[in-house]
């Protein structure tokens, strides 16, 4: 899957989760509070199920979850 396709899937996921308008790729998720402590748990499970990637806990870095673009980059870089 390309980064663009991953980004599109993530945009749809967040739109469904937040029940609001679609987020832009660079909109803040952490500082804005959109990605709270429960949302990150659910997101990590979604990434595993949807993209068949393992985001290793030991490699977890909050910077990778700052916005949709950074998450898409992370997913694209993970072995599938």
């Amino acid at each position, binding site marked *: 899957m390309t980064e663009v396709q991953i980004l599109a899937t993530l945009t749809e996921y967040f739109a469904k989760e937040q029940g609001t308008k679609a987020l832009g790729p660079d909109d803040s998720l952490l500082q804005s509070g959109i990605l709270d402590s429960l949302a990150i748990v659910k997101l990590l499970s979604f990434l595993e199920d949807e993209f068949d990637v393992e985001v290793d*806990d*030991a490699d977890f870095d909050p910077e990778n979850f700052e916005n949709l673009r950074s998450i898409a980059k992370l997913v694209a870089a993970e072995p599938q």
Partner: protein
Amino acid sequence: MDFSISSEQKAFRRSVSDFAKRELGGDMRAREKQGAFFWDGWHKCAEFGIQGMPMPSAFGGLELDTTTCLIAMQALGKECRDSGLLFSLNSHMWTCEIPVLEFGSEEQKQKYLPKMIEGKLVGGHAMTEPGAGSDAYSLRTTAKKVDGGYVLNGAKVFISNAPIADLLLVFATTNKELGWAGITGFLVDKDTPGMHISKPLEKIGLKTSPTGEISFEDCLVPDSAMLGREGQGSAIFNAEMEWERSCLFACHLGAMQRQLEECVEYAKDREQFGQSIGKFQSVSHKLADMRVRIELGELILHKVAWMKSRGKRAPLESAIAKLVVSESYMDSSVDALQVRGGYGFMSEYQADRDLLDAAGGKIYSGTSEIQRNIIARFLGL
């Protein structure tokens, strides 16, 4: 779907049961009265290999898979009445050993894991604060970066093993603006200047598992004390909660099995109105419910273990498991008391310990309400 356990797992379960019956008895009531930790039991568990069950053999562990660990904890829960010892063991293993294994540097693993597995070091986990319980990530303990390390300031409360811990995994914020994403874990040795640990707090249950408060006053820890990287605190906490919410609660399942066996025996022996009370549906239905709870608890716990054995996350499943098993333990403890009637109310039958331990189980590792929040979030609510 194969629900069977292997012959090796059955053999290990038997050996754990035999060990617990042989070595983990003693005068539980006396220990409870004094609030005394069962040190002899702790060291015997270490000799047997309990503290090293999930740990790699390179550090002296038994390198057992998650399901086998769960089966062993269930056996311990059934045969060992000292629930405080079991609680301390679980805290040590899932909330301190496992984080060091999964997030630690090689130096940290070498420094701590062999001694923790041998039972020579006791681990604890310091997250909860006076103002941060269910809202764990609103913690206020700060870790300010200075040259060569971090300075910790703050206070922790209800910390299991604190009064006896040699090593504490302390969670502090390194970036308050980021909330949960700004929390970092630190491995702090006891006697570190600036860290003060209270005497054991008096609890209504789990009396033989020491619980304390910790305060940090300009407590300097070196850079090498950080576990993982800055901001990984939530990842550490979430990972260890999946272990705790499955393996610790396997001990509850074991206790429920013991309760059921004792109640069935009682129901067969006790006669009223010309027959054994087990013949009355009001009694047999309670016992049937107790059996159903064990079966369902085992299924969900084993599912969590299966997922974790395959490297899968199980946040939803571990929340369901914790909720189901902890509430089942409370329901079965109430039923066990009721089945035994007046005799059950006598302290000789130790129903009070089960009830109060079960009450604690609905609170620690995230309250039942928090587990329901997690489950509701996965429903999209």
